[in-house]
């Protein structure tokens, strides 16, 4: 029922957090980029998470199995609500908050008033996000290890 699918759930969490880390490192690396391909300063990128729902074929198959299946198998898949299948990244968006204006008349990028538009990346914010992503990543790793240890323990039935 759930041994391997719970590992899939954990791995989806790992993937999502790793993607978040990638964006955070990109933001930090580009914290001083005043000119990108579009000509504007670098805009901070962020992402949205969504719960991954199980696909129609999964739910259909499990329902069919519980109705048609093995006569001795009287276990109902998913009585009650269905469990999600983990997390997925919804979309990667650019943060639309305004650029920081820094007074630096000597800079070749300075406009007529002497202000340079810097990327809207706040290093402190990115560090905090990085810690959060790292902690969530570790939690998902623990979750995956737990699922694995339960599966290994199950193999002891009948042994000895």
């Amino acid at each position: 029922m759930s041994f391997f699918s719970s590992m899939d759930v954990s791995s989806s969490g790992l993937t999502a957090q790793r993607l978040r880390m990638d964006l955070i490192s990109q933001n930090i690396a580009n914290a001083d980029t005043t000119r990108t391909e579009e000509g504007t300063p670098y805009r901070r990128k962020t992402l949205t998470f969504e719960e991954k729902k199980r696909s129609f074929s999964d739910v259909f198959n499990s329902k069919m199995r519980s109705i048609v299946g093995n006569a001795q198998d009287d276990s109902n898949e998913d009585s009650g609500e269905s469990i999600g299948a983990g997390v997925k990244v919804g979309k990667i968006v650019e943060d639309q908050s305004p650029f920081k204006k820094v007074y630096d008349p000597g800079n070749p990028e300075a406009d007529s008033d002497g202000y340079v538009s810097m990327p809207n990346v706040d290093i402190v914010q990115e560090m905090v996000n990085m810690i959060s992503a790292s902690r969530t990543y570790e939690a998902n790793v623990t979750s995956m290890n737990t699922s694995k240890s339960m599966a290994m323990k199950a193999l002891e039935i009948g042994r000895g």
Partner: protein
Amino acid sequence: MAISPIGRVNEIYKQTSQALKGTSNDGDNDTGAFKMLFDAAKNVAYDTTKLQNIAENTTTDFVTGKIDNIHKVLIDQEKANVALQFTVELRNKAIDAYKEIMRLQM
């Protein structure tokens, strides 16, 4: 109060030995005892086959990815093993009893 496994197995052994002593309620006294023993043996063998089929189906489902419930596979397999062991022991005891009876008739 849970019935212990010892109690359960002994119960079934007792039924079998009662059949040998001819305490069945069958109207026909000559073949009553043997028929009961034979039926008991048939039932046990049939149940063992059923359990083994279930174990095989569960294993096949696991291998083909239909289910991924590891403990179910192991438990079904273990039940089939225990049932088989029980059937074999029962058969041995029945054969011993038969030999005993054949000796007496000499």
